């Protein structure tokens, strides 16, 4: 009975996520197909002959009604067929497969470093609340939030790759490289992405724990004579899990977007670079496919955040 209630919440949230993704796919399709700009015209330019325009429209299926095109596109995308790129005719799904792997490798490495570090620093800030470690951390946070990713990227590149030659300035990776070489190659982009998300995550971790620290049971623990760090780690942290996981997921979702700029800065062969290149070429099928994948990852991570919040909340686990 109790688990049934929880299951219902979880299923509801997953269904909502799927619905949102479906709507988002519609939005991406509408965004690229029904805006005032004519796709065929913008691909071929103003000087295109009417015959060439008509041919391209037929090739793109633009002579079909929009709903049919949308359903075709969505149906194919669900079966893993993302169509062919306009610019070079390559199969989009196979071009994306390797790049998606690269992007997830980059974002995953950054997350694996940033999340534990943010939690540890957040705990440290609470432990030394109001004293210099706390202030230092808050100050650095404010600075990193306002700085654009490309500035961090080029600063890191200028300092570490050009002046001191510690890491390569261009992060090209390929299959033949050993894991160690790959990590060496992505060191700078990972550093930048960690810096970008660290501040926000840490600040929210600190806020979430401080919020819990005002509860009565924390006072009890203090009066029991527990050490301050034990109180934070054993009593406050478990009750702050939901908001912390939420902010971690938000930042992972942010990583997925920030990766676009970072990949361009370091010429990294990932999804972001691929998307940006093809937006410039006005290659609509590629843009749709990449947009859909980015949206799916983003919506998925937000959904996981909500699911963890549901599962971590004992009040929902044991409803009255």
């Amino acid at each position, binding site marked *: 009975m109790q688990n049934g209630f929880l299951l219902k919440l979880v299923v509801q949230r997953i269904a909502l996520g799927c619905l*949102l993704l479906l709507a988002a796919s519609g939005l991406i399709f509408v*965004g690229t197909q029904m805006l005032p700009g004519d796709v065929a015209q913008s691909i071929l330019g103003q000087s295109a002959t009417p015959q060439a325009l008509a041919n391209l429209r037929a090739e793109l299926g633009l002579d079909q009604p929009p709903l049919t095109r949308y359903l075709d596109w969505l149906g194919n995308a669900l079966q893993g067929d993302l169509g062919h790129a306009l610019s070079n005719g390559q199969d989009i799904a196979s071009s994306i497969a390797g790049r998606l792997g690269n992007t997830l490798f980059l974002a995953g490495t950054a997350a694996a470093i940033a999340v534990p570090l943010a939690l540890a620093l957040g705990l440290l800030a609470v432990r030394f609340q109001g004293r210099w470690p706390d202030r230092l951390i808050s100050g650095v946070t404010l600075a990193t939030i306002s700085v654009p990713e*490309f500035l961090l990227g080029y600063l890191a590149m*200028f300092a570490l790759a050009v002046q001191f030659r510690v890491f390569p300035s261009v992060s090209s990776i390929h299959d033949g490289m050993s894991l160690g070489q790959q990590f060496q190659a992505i060191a700078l982009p990972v550093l930048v992405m960690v810096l970008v998300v660290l501040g926000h995550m840490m600040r929210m971790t600190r806020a979430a724990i401080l919020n819990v620290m005002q509860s009565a049971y924390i006072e009890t623990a203090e009066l029991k004579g527990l050490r301050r760090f034990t109180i934070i780690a054993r009593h406050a942290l478990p009750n702050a899990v939901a908001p912390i996981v939420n902010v971690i997921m938000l930042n992972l979702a942010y990583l997925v977007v920030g990766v676009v700029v970072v990949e361009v800065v370091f010429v990294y062969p990932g999804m972001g670079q691929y998307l940006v290149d093809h937006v410039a070429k*006005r290659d609509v099928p590629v843009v749709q496919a990449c947009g859909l994948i980015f949206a799916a990852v*983003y919506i998925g991570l937000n959904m996981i955040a909500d699911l963890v919040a549901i599962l971590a909340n004992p009040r929902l686990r044991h409803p009255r």
Partner: protein
Amino acid sequence: MSRIPLSALIGLVITAAFFGAALLAPWIAPYGMAEVAGGVWDPSSPEHWLGTDSIGRDLLSRMIWGGRITIFVALAATLVAFATGVFLGFLAAVSGGWVDQALSRLVDLLMSIPALIMALVILSVMPVTLPVLIAVMGLIEATRVFRLSRAVAADIEVMDYVEAARLRGEGMVWVIFREILPNALSPLVAEAGLRFIFMVLFISTLSFLGLGVQPPLADWGGIVRENKDGIVYGVPAALFPAVAVAALAISVNLVADWILTRTSSLKGGRG
């Protein structure tokens, strides 16, 4: 009025300097925007304080002209975001019912796709001109403004004086503009500062990716893009406009923080 704290004062001075430079660009820029005035990537010298760029134009002059475009586009997009976001947010809060539902769910949907990805998708089919950029950025950002203004208006909407206005037969337009807007102004002003920063970062990022302001015009992001290849050769030209973006963002942030704390303490005073 309380004393201005040091951080806010620094923020105000730097922000004012950037806006002043943007307004006075034709008079203070030592060279023209497109004027080739020296060699490629000359180091800084008395003639060229920040050196020259990838084709020998004076970098300081380009930064001053570029700041003009960055600030103009960001301001215009912020205005679009606020005009649409605030109006629709208030409308949703005041009308409730299906209007509220429809608008709120539409905003949920728009926010489910990251702003940058959404902008890239739209810009892939639209002609990339300044008005289109301003509209796209403004409308995407309007979703964030909508959330805030709807929440603020929902709080105000239940006040007795709004009830009184309704009872004496005022229409929706009166309620929105004469009752709710004046009382929602202070949180919205602080929010405007933050949104302006996001717009500065947004247009800089788009231009850096080559999908924002197009040549021959250039904003700070575009100047970073033009000079990024110099980094590998140890030429720091691309760093200056990037630092300008960060400096503007941080100083506006300091000012917005101050306005936020000032207005919230005012609220506390009123009870």
